[in-house]
């Protein structure tokens, strides 16, 4: 169905775009171990994205952008590389620029705590593909959250500078948090049919987990208003930040130059 496909795109795009941002750390991380760990996380998310894009295409082939007749581009790539920015359904949290390592860690903590909670519930989805993706994803997200939590604590309790940067990073990220728990009509519909998860239902659980990390780290929960959308629309509606079309321009440039290409 179209709703299931749209829901899969939401989950897929979150993973794909977050993976893109993390992959930009490659050869830029503070140490080799972090280069490796961030690439690992990016690879896990890329893997999730691929399965979810394929599920979206199978659920409703009409979501896949049309390519010239005979194009060998598979559906997952048509979806990743041939949609415009207004057709991407990811939350805005994942698309903004990386900033420094502290911003990246703060974002990864919010993202992985949230997504882990979602996937834990999604494991019980009536859709067997989604359920399988979720079960595999839970293991991955647990590692991502632990990694982010460990670094969050380390930076908070490291040096004065790392603490200052961490708090700034958390504050920069916080306005994008509310969007994670705002239910989109499509999410409501798939939750109703036992296929998807209404993200508002994981808000409390995620909050408790974040509070634990904040309290261990001696960091106050930020008191910053959510980032407004435009006419009430946000990432899930295809309304993104200025950074996003630049991200896509880079991500899609080679694929789009070769719509008949085989890779």
């Amino acid at each position, binding site marked *: 169905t179209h709703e299931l496909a749209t829901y899969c795109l939401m989950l897929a795009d979150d993973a794909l775009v977050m993976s893109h941002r993390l992959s930009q750390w490659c050869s830029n991380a503070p140490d*080799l171990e972090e280069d490796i760990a961030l690439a690992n996380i990016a690879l896990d998310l*890329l893997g999730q994205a691929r399965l979810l894009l394929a599920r979206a295409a199978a659920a409703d082939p009409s979501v896949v952008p049309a390519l010239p007749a005979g194009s060998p581009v598979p559906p997952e790539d048509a979806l990743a*590389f041939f949609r415009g920015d207004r057709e991407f359904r990811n939350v805005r949290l994942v698309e903004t620029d990386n900033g420094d390592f502290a911003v990246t860690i703060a974002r990864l903590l919010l993202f992985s705590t949230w997504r882990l909670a979602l996937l834990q519930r999604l494991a019980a989805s009536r859709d067997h593909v989604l359920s399988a993706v979720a079960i595999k994803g839970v293991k991955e997200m647990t590692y991502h959250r632990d990694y982010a939590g460990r670094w969050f604590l380390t930076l908070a309790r490291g040096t004065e500078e790392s603490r200052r940067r961490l708090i700034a990073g958390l504050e920069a990220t916080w306005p994008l948090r509310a969007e994670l728990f705002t239910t989109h009509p499509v999410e409501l519909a798939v939750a109703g049919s036992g296929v998807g998860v209404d993200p508002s239902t994981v808000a409390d659980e995620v909050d408790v987990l974040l509070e634990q990390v904040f309290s261990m780290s001696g960091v106050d929960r930020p008191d910053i208003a959510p980032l407004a959308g435009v006419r009430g629309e946000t990432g899930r509606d295809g309304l993104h930040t200025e950074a996003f079309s630049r991200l896509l321009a880079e991500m899609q440039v*080679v694929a789009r130059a070769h719509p008949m290409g085989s*890779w």
Partner: protein
Amino acid sequence: MTLAPEADESELRAVFEATIERHDRIEPRDWMPEAYRKTVIRQVAQHAHSEIIGMQPEGNWITRAPSLRRKAILLAKVQDEAGHGLYLYSACETLGVSRLELTEMLINGKQKYSSIFNYPTLSYADVGTIGWLVDGAAICNQVPLCRTSYGPYGRSMIRICKEESFHQRQGYELLATMMRGTDEQREMVQESVNRFWWPALMMFGPPDDDSPNTAQSMAWGIKRNTNDDLRQRMVDMTVPQAKALGVTLPDPELRWNEERQSHDFGSPDWDEFKDVITGNGPCNTQRIAHRRRAHEDGAWVREAAMAFAARGAEA
């Protein structure tokens, strides 16, 4: 660092030489001549730096990979290079030099890395060509090094070589897929091979008659083959693969020599090689600046981690 009392030196030297003679491994706690230690450090560090700098030319295309499958393959490959760097720095640390010292020698230009990474990557085909030719050359270089005399280095090489041959196959497979694609893709592949063929052959270092360190390194079992031997092996291995791919290697002198049962081939442009080695290659400055920036930008994170660990140790 092991310190040998001076009195025992001749005895220790005899043990060392016997070990080399037997083609056995020298281990970190064993006595070794200072010159041997320095040579191993230089070679292993150069190899480690090559892995780390080598992340950049391929990493340049991760965000632009044209399919998700290729993106995953490329990201995993570049990650493997970071892993190789990690083992090799560890191997170096067994000789008493820290990773931080090695990194500083890299960004201050006191230690080298493979000249191949001073060439730019200009299209996605370069990802395939680097896998096929550059990793191919690296394997020719490295397989013999699995038997190198310094234990930690040799054991690193065994693991690295396995992964490198996997990367080489993946590179070849990307090129083969592109060659089955559109005319434009075939042109991309040929253009890429044109740029990388000679630099790949130069990876084996200068001709034997112009390679001052080879003899000592071979005597010590650090190096197992001469540069020209390895270069010939690379050419002989690659020609049939190029034919299978359908690409032309850009060397008019390349032909089969029935008598030698081997290929004759032209001479690389050694002036260009020297230019690149001495720092004027198309990307030398860029590669080092990138590494330096990442290292400096990460300083506060490493400091935080140390401060945090120290506090944990106190508590």
